[in-house]
């Protein structure tokens, strides 16, 4: 009982508890769940969720939203495709170019948000169309499928027969983001700008610069997610990113990021992404109609809220009774 209480008090309990529950239930009820094929597949789906979630999280921490995550992803991957297929660049250069493209798109968004005075939501909305439109105009909708074979293989590479190589990339990116947010000045500044922009300025933070950098990082992360997606699909696809927007919000939020800015949980998206994938997996394994996928994700999100409330209530009660005891 005490253990459970302790667990409930942990910051991430609202995501860890559902993960453990679903994982346990699946392991008991479904024999295929622990098969290496299934585990590999689960781990293979996680990285993109996580990185897209991180891309959104960093903008959320600024108290803003990036609706263009998917479009930035698709335009970056088009740059990647052009570099690799049309210009015959080596893989590393192509990846670099794609990331630069992503950062640039984020940068443009950041500059417009800070300098133009136009409503940030509308900017993001317009850029969503603009970036995607640009990708379409450049390619005329044609995919790039003659990619470097080694690169495509990477997306499906198995390590120890269980882990896809991509999950290590996601872990690495999460780690870097963790350090960035928690241990670098930039992270503190980002959170400060998200919590109270004016106070941040009065604390000597360059608000505009910080916001721009935040958006740029978000753009870069979108590009990384896109590259991982390309390597999994083995081709650059213009529908990449079409399904990212909802995911990008759900993942960090499941992972405990406040949408109002100023507070984030960097490890959260990793767990949030994992939880999403587990739910999807459970729905297929339990033979529930895939129509229920949506409903299940929604219910889990609501459940996360409940767990969080329970946790807070318990901690408050504890603190209160501690005071009473003292008296």
């Amino acid at each position: 009982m005490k253990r459970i209480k302790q667990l409930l008090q942990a910051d991430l309990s609202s995501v860890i508890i559902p993960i453990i529950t679903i994982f346990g239930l699946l392991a008991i009820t479904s024999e295929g769940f622990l098969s290496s094929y299934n585990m590999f597949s689960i781990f293979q789906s996680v990285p993109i969720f996580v990185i897209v979630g991180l891309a959104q999280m960093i903008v959320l921490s600024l108290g803003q939203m990036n609706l263009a995550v998917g479009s930035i992803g698709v335009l970056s991957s088009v740059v990647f495709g052009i570099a690799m297929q049309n210009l015959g660049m080596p893989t590393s250069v192509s990846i670099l170019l794609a990331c630069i493209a992503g950062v640039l798109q984020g940068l443009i968004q950041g500059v417009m948000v800070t300098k133009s005075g136009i409503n940030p939501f509308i900017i993001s909305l317009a850029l969503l169309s603009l970036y995607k439109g640009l990708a379409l105009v450049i390619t005329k909708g044609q995919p790039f499928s003659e990619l470097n074979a080694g690169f495509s293989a990477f997306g499906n590479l198995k390590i120890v027969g269980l882990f896809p190589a991509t999950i290590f990339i996601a872990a690495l990116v999460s780690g870097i983001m963790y350090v960035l947010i928690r241990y670098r000045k930039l992270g503190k500044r980002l959170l400060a700008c998200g919590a109270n922009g004016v106070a941040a300025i009065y604390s000597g933070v360059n608000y505009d610069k910080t916001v721009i950098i935040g958006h740029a990082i978000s753009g870069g992360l979108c590009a990384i997610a896109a590259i991982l997606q390309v390597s999994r699909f083995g081709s650059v696809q213009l529908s990449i990113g079409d399904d990212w927007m909802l995911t990008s919000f759900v993942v960090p939020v499941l992972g405990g990021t406040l949408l109002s800015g100023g507070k984030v949980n960097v490890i959260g998206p990793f767990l949030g992404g994992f939880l999403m994938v587990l739910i999807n997996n459970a729905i297929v394994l339990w033979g529930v109609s895939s129509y229920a996928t949506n409903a299940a994700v929604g219910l889990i999100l609501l459940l996360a809220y409940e767990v969080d409330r329970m946790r807070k209530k318990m901690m408050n009660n504890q603190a209160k009774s501690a005071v009473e005891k003292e008296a």
Partner: protein
Amino acid sequence: MDFAKIRKSNSFSVSIIIVFMVVVMCFFKRNYLSSDNISALLKVLAVTTLVGVSQMISIASGGMNVSIGSVGAMAAILSGLLMQNLKVPVLLSILIGIGIGVLSGIINGLLIYRNGGVGVASFLTTLATNSVFIGIIYMITTGHGVSKIPDAFVAIGSSKIGPVPTSVLIVGVLITLVYFMFTYTSLGRQILAFGANPKAAELYGISRFKTILSVNIIASILAAIAGMLVVMRVGTAQPDIGSDWMLQSFAAPLIGGTRQAGGKVVVFGVILGVLVLTIIENALVHLGVDVYWTELINGVVIIVIMAFDRLRSIKN
């Protein structure tokens, strides 16, 4: 209202842009203002305006509602199914459709209240309920549309009263009611006060619970009506109704001058915002723009419009 004040308003600059767009279109296409095209524009306008107003109410209260589309779809599908399978009379079905709106509004409202009230909570909660509602729709329909909608129902959408399509009239009445609510009733003012400063509003006697609940019920009723209007327009009730409402619902009121942080609305500005969006969509078809260019142009035009509005407000 004196002219100077009007001239400074956001609505004025958006109006200028709309007039400009129409003039340019008339220049390129002689028949741009044909009655056919105007009625095509009006029909889209009706639904999108309702969607925008529904979102505007949530924004006014300092919240967001991303479940508008699924509420609309639920009302459309359920009223459609009742009419098709159980032969429920048209009027009763419409009432039940609105009832679905009320019910989902209550669900949203209660959950949002429970989860803390404004901004964050409303976005997340409706994100979750949206998923649940969509799940319900697809479980009921298994992805199939309801195609045997009684003519009497569809006729409401396609008929005209005088020169005006009935659907436009319905929306006109509804938006006027919303305007009336925000301008003259204390409920409207309470919503605005709560949106601008929830803490102060609560400290001075506005009930958080009542406000959130009424906002969500009203918004969901409008969404439900919008969903049924789509059925009247399309002739079938498809489960994908509302799937592309989300972005429009935010864009229309924000372009129209509603304050994103809540507390200030420009009710009729929503119509202007919707006009901007629909005219772009309409113009792209009229000009025969290549399919690959439509997205790009869409984005560019929105930015240009907002930049223009911004420049004017700086000058003022």
